[in-house]
């Protein structure tokens, strides 16, 4: 039997019958149950807080970037508020405690420029802490006055003056001073 049609004629009815029979053949349900049990072992259920690592990298990256920007913004705001002069200049209410009112000519821009230069207490730090209200006064102090206060002054510049800011207390007493570059 070599003819294709003849072979097909013999096979076709058997083939159709078998295909019909095959429709009723189903994989035993136990197979699916076993596989699902194996799946549970492969991927055990985790509590909700441990499912975060499942989040994809894109989402995680976006979340981290967003948080970083938020933290930077918050930090910038809080740093801005920590600048004493800026807060006090914009705030017209009376100052208390360690708050200092700037009276520097030229506004707070100049004040900001020298904020890194520390004040030196003229008497004691405790006296400064006890003050309810203080202000900063910018002044030109003759070097001769500085010499009389015990500050070493080069004789060649004794006739010149030094630019300084003085921390003045509520009763106009001088509390601290810092020298600014000319």
């Amino acid at each position, binding site marked *: *039997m070599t003819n294709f049609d003849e072979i097909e004629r013999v096979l076709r009815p058997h083939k159709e*019958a078998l295909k019909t029979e095959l429709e009723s053949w189903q*994989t035993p349900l136990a197979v699916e149950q076993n596989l699902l049990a*194996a799946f549970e072992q492969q991927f055990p259920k985790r509590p909700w807080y441990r499912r975060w690592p499942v989040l994809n990298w894109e989402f995680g990256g976006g979340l981290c970037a967003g948080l970083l920007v938020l933290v930077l913004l918050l930090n910038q705001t809080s740093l801005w508020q920590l600048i004493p002069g800026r807060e006090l200049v914009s705030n017209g209410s009376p100052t208390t405690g360690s708050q200092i009112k700037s009276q520097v000519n030229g506004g707070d821009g100049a004040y900001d420029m020298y904020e890194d230069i520390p004040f030196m207490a003229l008497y004691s730090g405790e006296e400064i802490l006890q003050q309810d209200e203080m202000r900063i006064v910018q002044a030109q102090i003759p070097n001769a006055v500085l010499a009389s206060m015990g500050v070493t002054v080069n004789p060649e510049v004794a006739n010149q003056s030094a630019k300084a800011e003085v921390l003045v207390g509520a009763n106009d007493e001088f509390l601290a001073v810092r020298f600014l570059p000319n």
Partner: protein
Amino acid sequence: MDDLISDTELLRQMRQGDKAAFTALYRRHHAVLYRYAILRCGSPGIAADVVQDVFLGLLTEQFKYDALKGPLAYFLFGVARNLAMKNDSALQKTTNTTSTNSLLDDEDEDEVFDTICDDAAPLERLLHKQMAEDLRQGIACLAPHYRDVLILYEIHDMSYLEIADICQINVGTVRSRLSRARQALAERLSSHRDNIMSAAQRA
């Protein structure tokens, strides 16, 4: 709804621990694999084991699927075929120990029928129509490498190229094996029918 999602996407979700994706994949492919396996192995029990092992291997990544090499369905058929071949080898060893006279090399192209067919478990409980049973028995008696191409072509309506891809053989080999298998099967069925007819006439 699951039908709209590609196999590759379901597989990706499954690997992320999505149980529903795994279930969808299984339900999409298990039936055809089981029908192939039951005809290929001749036993519902072994066929169920084959299907289970196929999906277990997919789950544990024992069998790694590469989407670039073709559809998942062909990959699963290929894995099922390999598992069936392993089963053949085990069965062959058992047969060899009991009967050294029935040696048959699977790679022997001259032997179309497999000698172990008489020992295969019958499926009478599953098959109600005589013609379907005759064909099933005929297929079961084919040597495994003929059985593969015949089942995939005649029952699963696959093309030569698809069969070549699954069985990892060239198209020419698919053609020749299919031609020989069909001829052998037709001759067997014809002689079987003649025997029945003559028996009926004698009665």
